[in-house]
């Protein structure tokens, strides 16, 4: 198992190097220039431009700039933001918990609803319930996030007044950040009201962000369950006189999960991408909103650093998924 882990870890290295190149090149491919943007409509003299350019190190060749970026990366230094002059790492880490919290709740929503829905659809294959579940999930999958988010805000926040429109917690509470997770921090502070309020603010964004993963998980679970239900060992389980529930939930689901877990892992990348839109709709102070701002200002260090960190997180999640395989599927472990 440990060797398996090391091999998987080693495989990440070339991927990671590729990511750094893409992240470095991507923002520089965009038209526009951070110095010109900072100068704004007033314009800037050629001398001042050259001075700032050499100050920021942009006058060096791209290869040197890239190697410099890589060197800093190996030391855990992503440089400073061109806008705030604060270290990119600090900027990222102060916002990331908000995104992570939202993504985890969205993923939990997607799994808790999607998995049983998929199982139910497979068991009731061809019946009305199956068609209903699959129809709803296809609709959910096809829905543009920003449109879906606005619809839900209009219904639940504006018309019904059940949920807040934006933000992470009611203005009545101030919670000292410890972990950055509003739900956990409010529990640490021992403030039940704040905890419930933070959950209340999480409901709608989690549903919006979790809708597409939910649909994907439900459909994958269904097809995977149907495949496993036709296996010989499921017949064996029935031949043992086990209850239908046990045949489905133990013998079938356990095997069906192997492919579902892969799909759940892949959703994490999508969640972080989807978070950018969701955070914009709900004014959620996470990395999504921060990245959008950084891109529009051509804040090179922030964008490349943010991209590398997000890619790193996605890679780590995929590594964890590979490890989870080993736990679920003994054929890989041995």
């Amino acid at each position, binding site marked *: 198992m440990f060797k398996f882990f090391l091999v998987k870890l080693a495989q990440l290295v070339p991927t990671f190097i590729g990511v750094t190149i893409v992240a470095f090149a991507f923002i520089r491919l965009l038209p526009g220039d951070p110095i010109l943007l900072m100068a704004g409509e007033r314009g800037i003299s050629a001398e001042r431009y050259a001075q700032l350019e050499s100050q920021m190190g942009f006058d060096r060749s791209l290869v040197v700039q890239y190697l410099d970026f890589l060197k800093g990366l190996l030391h855990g230094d992503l440089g400073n933001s061109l806008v705030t002059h604060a270290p990119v790492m600090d900027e990222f880490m102060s916002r990331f918990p908000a995104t992570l919290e939202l993504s985890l709740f969205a993923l939990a929503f997607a799994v808790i609803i999607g998995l049983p829905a998929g199982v139910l659809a497979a068991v009731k294959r061809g019946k009305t319930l199956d068609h209903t579940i699959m129809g709803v999930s296809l609709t959910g999958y096809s829905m543009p996030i920003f449109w879906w988010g606005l619809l839900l805000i209009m219904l639940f926040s504006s018309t019904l007044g059940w949920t807040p429109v934006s933000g992470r917690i009611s203005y009545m509470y101030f919670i000292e950040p410890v972990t950055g997770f509003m739900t956990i921090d409010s529990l640490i502070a021992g403030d039940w009201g704040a905890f419930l309020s933070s959950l209340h603010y999480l409901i709608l964004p989690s549903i919006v962000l979790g809708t597409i993963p939910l649909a994907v998980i439900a459909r994958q679970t269904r097809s995977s369950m149907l495949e496993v239900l036709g296996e010989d060992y499921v017949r*064996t389980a*029935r031949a043992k*006189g086990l209850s239908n529930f046990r045949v489905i939930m133990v013998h079938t689901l*356990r*095997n069906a999960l192997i492919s579902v877990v892969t799909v759940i892992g892949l959703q994490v990348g999508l969640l972080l991408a989807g978070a950018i839109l969701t955070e914009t709709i709900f004014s959620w102070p996470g990395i999504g909103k921060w990245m959008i701002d950084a891109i529009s200002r051509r804040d090179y260090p922030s964008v490349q650093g943010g991209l590398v960190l997000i890619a790193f997180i996605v890679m780590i999640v995929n590594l964890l998924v590979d490890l989870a395989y080993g736990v679920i599927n*003994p054929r890989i472990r041995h």
Partner: protein
Amino acid sequence: MALLDIEGLSVRFKTSSGLFAAVEGVDINVDRGEVWSIVGESGSGKSVSMLATMGLLPWTAQVTADKMAFDGQDLQQLSSRQRRRIVGGEMSMIFQEPMSSLNPCFTVGTQIDEMIKQHLGGSRKERHERALDLLAQVGIPDPARRIKAYPHQLSGGMSQRVMIAMAISCNPRLLIADEPTTALDVTIQAQILELLLRLQEDTGMALILITHDMGVVAETAKHVVVQYAGRQVEKQDVKSLFANPRHPYTEALLSALPERAGDRDRLPTIPGVVPGQHDRPSGCLFNPRCQYATEHCREVEPVPAADDPARTLCHYPLEDGISPSPAAAGAARDNPQSSPHREVRP
């Protein structure tokens, strides 16, 4: 009272082109401790009829029977909960593909334990002891180590032994073995058959062996049911079946045995294949492949004669190896290779 008493068993599958009768009119009545065999080519409905008895067919199957009783309990009337108490506990089954019949996610021990827990109960320690004991009984070396093995770590023969251990774990009174040796290589086949027969003798359970191998039938069974295209064509005890096959199909199967072919250069075969859903002939289902078939056979479906203990599904059942069919004389003349007058007997 027979242990397993089935009369007029029919299984129909819903297909896109209407109902397909995979099994029709199968009777089987197994007494305690008897060894039965069901023979027939692939596609003759052997497995389906036994899966129907176990209640393991998918929902597209419609199972009907005039009588379907296990130990006096009508299987068709039982609730699914009551039926599950019998299936696995009193009546268990092993399958053709041992490698895919075990769940890849659980250890051998877990899978045996689950069965014991379901039907016999007992403490964790007792169940573990029993599982070890069972593995030793089916001839698995080093049970203490194997009990922790996952199915992918076992060979086909070992997997089938594990399946057998699991099937007999709750002291069933009837074991159904569905072609248990087909997927195994020849040396292992004999070992598995021997094991099944030894266990049958030791425990006194009844055994139904589904096979397409007449040699296996001769070595194991006391009673034989011959099926063709879902119909039961003949039912006899093994001695009279071999000495005196009543149905031309049985006769043809027997003459394809190397032991019976004598010193002929080529083994006789049965031309053609079992008809499927879409190419069912009219009249007797076997008529296109039967050397004795007449115009009557091609037009009228046969029914077993009321006074025939073998319930032969034939217009002209063989008598002492001679067909009374008007076509028999011609067949014997045209085709001496498969003459009905056989001198070679076991």
